[in-house]
């Protein structure tokens, strides 16, 4: 009869095996990375924010990532080299070409993940309106909708209850559902604003909630990466039952 294990015993067992293992992949394909969508005159370039997110992912999770951020245009086929893409903005976006819309539809339909980050921090401004318009062109029959409080993105690594970025309490994550996954999301709280750093490593923007708020933003960013890779894994029955057994989920 196998021993009944507990979280404590597993953690203890893992801790006993603190043998460092060199992390490397089989070439670039095995490393997780981020592509920033570049829309001239409209998108905001914040590579340090995403690089910080990936550093946090490397530190906190088992994911092997490449913190070097690349920039690609929405209609550039190179986008398919990077299954995780972000687009940051605080104002209206120009109309995307039909080729760009077609490519984004293919990208999201076949396994890519696209995050729109509203740098205005409101979720109600011109950027959000542009995102809704673009989303409707990509998937005319699937509107951008608020994600439920028990969505897997809120428990993919950390247990969260709302999106926190440079701002907080401004809204909820919204997304487009394709089957069991949500491969397109919009964050209303300027997530990259909370993570962004200067070249010398200091936080670019002070937050109202201080470092506690930045910590929550970091947790959201890690959850987004984990969700992009594992989708609804945390909704698998085994995980739900285990979390409920531990009293961490009702």
């Amino acid at each position, binding site marked *: 009869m196998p021993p009944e294990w507990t979280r404590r015993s597993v953690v203890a067992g893992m801790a006993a095996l603190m043998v460092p293992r060199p992390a490397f992949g089989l070439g670039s394909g095995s490393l997780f990375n981020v592509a920033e969508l570049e829309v001239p005159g409209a998108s905001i370039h914040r590579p340090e924010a995403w690089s910080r997110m990936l550093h*946090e992912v490397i530190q906190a999770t*088992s*994911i092997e990532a490449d913190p070097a951020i690349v920039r690609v245009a929405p209609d550039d086929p190179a986008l398919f080299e990077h299954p995780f893409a972000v687009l940051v903005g605080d104002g209206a976006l120009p109309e995307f070409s039909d080729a760009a819309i077609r490519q984004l539809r*293919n990208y999201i339909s*076949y396994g890519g993940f696209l995050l729109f980050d509203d740098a205005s921090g409101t979720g109600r401004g011109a950027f959000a309106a542009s995102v809704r318009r673009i989303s409707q062109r990509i998937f005319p029959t699937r509107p951008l909708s608020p994600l439920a409080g028990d969505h897997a993105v809120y428990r993919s690594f950390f247990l969260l209850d709302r999106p926190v970025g440079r701002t907080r309490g401004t809204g909820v994550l919204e997304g487009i559902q394709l089957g069991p996954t949500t491969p397109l999301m919009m964050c209303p709280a300027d997530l990259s604003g909370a993570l962004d750093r200067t070249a010398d490593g200091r936080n670019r923007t002070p937050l109202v909630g201080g470092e506690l708020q930045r910590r929550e933003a970091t947790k959201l960013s890690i959850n987004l990466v984990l969700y992009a890779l*594992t989708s609804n*894994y945390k909704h698998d029955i*085994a995980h739900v039952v285990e979390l409920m057994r531990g009293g961490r989920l009702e």
Partner: protein
Amino acid sequence: MMQWLTGGRLSEDGVLVWSGDPAATAAAAVVCAGVLFWAVRRRGTRRVEELALWLGAMLTLLWAIADPNWAEETGREEPGISVMLVDASRSMRVSDGGRSRSEQAAAIVERFGDDATVLTFGDGLITANDGRSSAGGTDIGAALEAVADRYLGQQLASIVLVTDGIDRGGLRDAFAAGSMAVPPLPGPLTVMQVGEGAALQDDAIEAVRSGGFAFLRTPFHLDASVRGRPGARLELTLRREGRLVDTARVTLGDDGRGEVRFEVTPTEVGRFVWEVSIPVAGNDGVPGNNRFPVVVRVVRDRTRVLQVCGSPSTDQKFLRLFLKEDPSVDLVSFFILRTHQDFGAGWYPDELSLIPFPYERLFTEQLETFDVVVFQNFDYKPYFENGPDRLLGNIAEFVRNGGAFVMIGGDRSFDLGDYAGTPIDEVLPVRLGLTGVSADETGFRPALTAAGGGHPVTRIAGSPSDSEAAWEALPEQDGMNLNRGLARDSAALLTHPTLTVQGERMPVLAVREVGAGRTMALMTDASWRWSFSEAAKGRGNQSYLRFWKGALRWLVADPDDRRVVVQPSVENLLLGEALQVTARVRDAGFVPVAGARISGWVEAPDGARSPIDAITDAQGSASASVVPEQEGAHRVRIKVEDHGTAETVFSVTSRDPELAEIVPDEAFLNALADAYGDRGVYVGSDSGNAPLRDEDATRKVNESRVVALSSVPLVAVLFGAFAGLAWWVRRRNGGH
């Protein structure tokens, strides 16, 4: 004298029938015309008289050639005959009251059959009565119809039906349903029953309903219908190929019938014999119907996959999406989201939604519930702290017992995961144990091998050449785990274009059959590019889907889709019947193997073995004929040198459907007689009452007479007279 000349007296009711060949008659007419022309050309006196005589001779000749016949039909009436219809079905072999029913029937025939035509019947009418019960089933309606047809237009003095009344042709069922329609008969019917129901005990399993197939790990029902003495309490036993599975008790109802349901949860895929039986009492009339074997084929409804990944990655994401969206897959995923190296990142455990990795439970008690286990860039050492060899050994044993295992590349896989020398190493299709560099990070495009062209895993297009073209069009992989070449009994489906090992291209994708299970090794961690990069080109992700669908299908293949397969031509047969056992042999690349020697045996329930020895033909097939000599579950096991083994089962029974019910049906026979009103009567076999007769019944005996008018003596006399006189007149008057 005149009677002799004309062939006798001719009746006025006759008809003239011309039987000569029309062509011959026409030719003769032409010749006769020529003779007359020759006669009329003579010069001199009495030409008219000569011509008349020649005309008479020619007409007489034409009459003879035309061959007229005088046909006369006559008939006479005689008293109608009696017919005895004797049941010769197998149920007449049953003994009750000290004699078999066929012996009782023979006694009735002896008593009443002196002046009767005796016919036997089973499924239909059998004309000869050889005194034995040799027919198959019982179809009383068909037998009565056959008598009516046989004596169409006649009246019979009596028809005696001698039977036990266990009709299986439909007439009895129709009566039970309320119909009283019976075939019209040419005479009065006397029904004589043989067999006494009261003297008989027969407990029987009438039927076992299973549906024929069941789903793996899903309960299914075996419903048994039991018959016996009303109120009797019977114990039923369920066995699977001789091994006790379950028992149940049933109390029969007032109608002597009962139903029992067994619930069974199959744990293996394949064909299996389940047998329901009841004890045989000393006075049981038919012991053979106290057991009822059925072969049930167990199949998968959904493929249960365990995906274990050591590090979330794009490759893991795409495989999960594929598995999750396939409705035929029941997926359980476990991803290592955090390792011991990540514990110092400053996050509190209560902030996390992580659960412990239940490796102990997964790879011990729950392992058998999966069909496929996938290790995707998973290193076991940090987690399997409690007996890693035991847990990996469980997986290897799981494979040998019929499970499937896949290892996908990455920096935690194969030699990078320290699997060399472990039980997993023993079942992988590639050899591990490299020292030094264990991975190559150079991009490459895998090449399809000859075996891969036709293999179900890598056949991603219609033909091998199309598959090769499709693989060549797919994007490059980023790198691969190195290996020491193929393991024994393995096949490389994709190889590296330049890297070699022991003179061969290094395997990138390899497969292997191990015991009853299968393994697959994919040495890269970027198969996702076959999906995503293809989508970038607007070509969709069909190649990726076909590859993984093909892989899953092959990995969990049923026993009928393995390299070595043996199948019986029938799964349930009667004792004494022959069946064909066919074996099919394919190599690791699924190419038919010709000339392979197949050896093995058919094992009877008592352990006696009949050897099988055959050589495969060009299609990789070989057959052997088997005539089982025992009842019960038979197991066939074959071995093909260098290719593997296979086995199957079939069930042999002496159950005879005709003997499933043997109690005479007196009520039906009474109803049958009543259906004919005053021209039908039921009498018991021992009553001594003579059969019902119709003394006025008659039958017409037909006779016919044909007189050949061309061959009567008068024709020859006339021809001689006419021709002789004509010649005489001609010679006397100057003719030649």
